């Protein structure tokens, strides 16, 4: 018997530490040929005996592969347990869940990706999808901010993105030591440098709750329309499928109505940002 709450078996194929607190996992489903996710969707990961946690899929959609990637930060029970696991260990997977990004809306447009800290994880899926189908999209800006240089995720990958034609990568940190040559300051300080074509621009923001307000107001100053701004939100989730009630903000369920929201709609949800 299977229910809504039955996780499927999966195995850790690779575990690559990114920072002190984050590890990138490659997972392999044992009973399915592909996860079949969209960028921005998440899965519920089970560590049996410890619990379940919603984690964004970090790899690009891969219609013919049973593997996908998750990048996990340790903050509590499940995430701590995950980070202590290694290649060959077993987990449970439910999903993918959530709406994800509708890539068709972004085709032919300029895209600004704004990521704060671990927010890069869900965005990486989308960015990789865009890079895989580069010809479908126009200019790409990637703004990424972290607390300190040692918190930077996917460092090599970021560098390789930055070296690609038509991709403008900007990074910044809040606090830096002497060996840091890049920008210092909050992420909004990167925005004035961008040469935007507002009507043709879609902005995608994922980060900690405080970041949204500042980035959105900056974008609005740069005349990016509210309906061209997209965010992905994080809430407490216990089921991932719109039943348990925890992720509800006003009338909206983050797990099933989101986690991706258009800002014009989100504005009407007082509890959202």
């Amino acid at each position, binding site marked *: 018997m299977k229910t809504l709450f039955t996780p499927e078996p999966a195995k850790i194929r690779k575990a690559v530490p990114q920072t002190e607190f984050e590890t990138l996992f490659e997972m392999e489903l044992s009973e399915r040929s592909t996860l079949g996710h969209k960028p921005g969707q998440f899965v519920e990961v089970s560590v049996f005996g410890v619990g379940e946690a919603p984690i964004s899929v970090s790899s690009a959609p891969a219609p013919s592969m049973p593997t996908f990637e998750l990048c996990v930060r340790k903050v509590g029970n499940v*995430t701590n347990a995950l980070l202590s696991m290694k290649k060959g260990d077993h987990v449970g997977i439910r999903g993918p869940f959530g709406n994800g990004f509708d890539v068709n809306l972004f085709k032919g447009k300029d895209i600004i990706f704004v990521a704060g800290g671990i927010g890069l994880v869900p965005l990486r899926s989308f960015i990789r999808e865009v890079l895989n189908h580069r010809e479908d999209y126009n200019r790409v800006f990637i703004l990424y901010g972290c607390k300190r240089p040692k918190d930077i995720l996917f460092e090599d990958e970021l560098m390789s993105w930055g070296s690609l034609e038509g991709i403008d990568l900007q990074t910044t940190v809040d606090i830096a030591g002497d060996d840091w040559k890049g920008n210092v300051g909050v992420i909004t300080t990167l925005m004035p440098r961008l040469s935007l074509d507002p009507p043709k621009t879609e902005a995608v923001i994922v980060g900690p709750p405080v970041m949204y307000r500042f980035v959105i107001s900056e974008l609005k100053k740069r005349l990016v329309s509210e309906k061209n701004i997209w965010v992905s939100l994080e809430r407490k989730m216990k089921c991932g499928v719109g039943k348990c009630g925890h992720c*509800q903000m006003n009338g909206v369920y983050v797990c099933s109505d989101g986690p991706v929201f258009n800002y014009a709609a989100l504005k009407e949800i007082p509890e959202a940002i």
Partner: protein
Amino acid sequence: MKQYVVEKPGIRKSVEEELKRKKVCAPVKQENSANFSAIHSFEEIVWGPPQTVIPPKKYFLPTSENILSFRKRDGGFEVEALNAAEEIVLFGVHPCDLNAIYLTDRIFAEKNQDENYLAKREKAVLIGVDCLTPCSPEAVCLRMDGLNPGDRFDLFLTDIGDVYFVEAASRKGEEFLRGEGRPASEIDHRKLSSVRKQRDELFDQEEKKLLPDYNDLPGLMKRNYVHAVWEEHGEKCYGCGSCNMVCPTCYCFDVEDYMRVDLENGFRKRFWDGCMLEDFAKVASGENFREERFDRLRHRTNRKLNYLFDKWGQSFCTGCGRCIKACLTHIVSPLEIANEIFQRQSV
């Protein structure tokens, strides 16, 4: 819907027949109150007041339910989904609870179907009983459109004197009757109308009226999302979640894993949770999206009168009055909150 008239001993016979086959649950006396419980004889059934302390939702969404069991095996885990459901007859369900069950059915059947709820629900026969007198001083069902169950039952009994007027909305309901009774006549219908009219008058005489227009409740809540009432009431709130626990339309749950001492066998359990509790919306980083008690009271009230009303076209407070009684600080009544907001916005 078919309508019958059944002699009182006929209903007794049907219950006794069911008792031989199935678990029959009904309100039974519990001290100076009542509660749903498995019965062993027809006499145990409490008809009418008092209201049960907790609603019958516990039969479909148990207070605590194992949804998964797992055990270590070959380096991995053997996982088994658990979904215990048994055939039961729920007898003596009041209209407010019938409405509430209908509403939670919608929630659990929507999009991702929750088999653990639905399996239990499908195996249940709902037999409602009309409330001819208010079942508690707190009941506001007439105001919250909870007193008329429509066809949201398998069978519904109204005492119209020496016989029951019986409405059967499903095959399950018909089967319960086992051919007892006869089709209702014109006279029976007239009797029913007059009994219901009397009933409504009795309920109407209660001092509690809903001042705003029922259909404008979502609008009223939206317009007054920011209102002093929330803080004033919130200040007195314990954050004790009693109002959530006793509400027939509160269905939120939490999920936890439990491991046995051997660290090899365990299970995943879901259990009732409530949006009035402090940690309900707190995420792992420590951020709490509804930190203050008033945020949470506003959320609860809005769920009943606005968000879910908006989505499903009906108040999710069915006026059972349980939370009003349970709340030791007398702040939670959705009707009173709506009235207070209505009055204070109009001056």
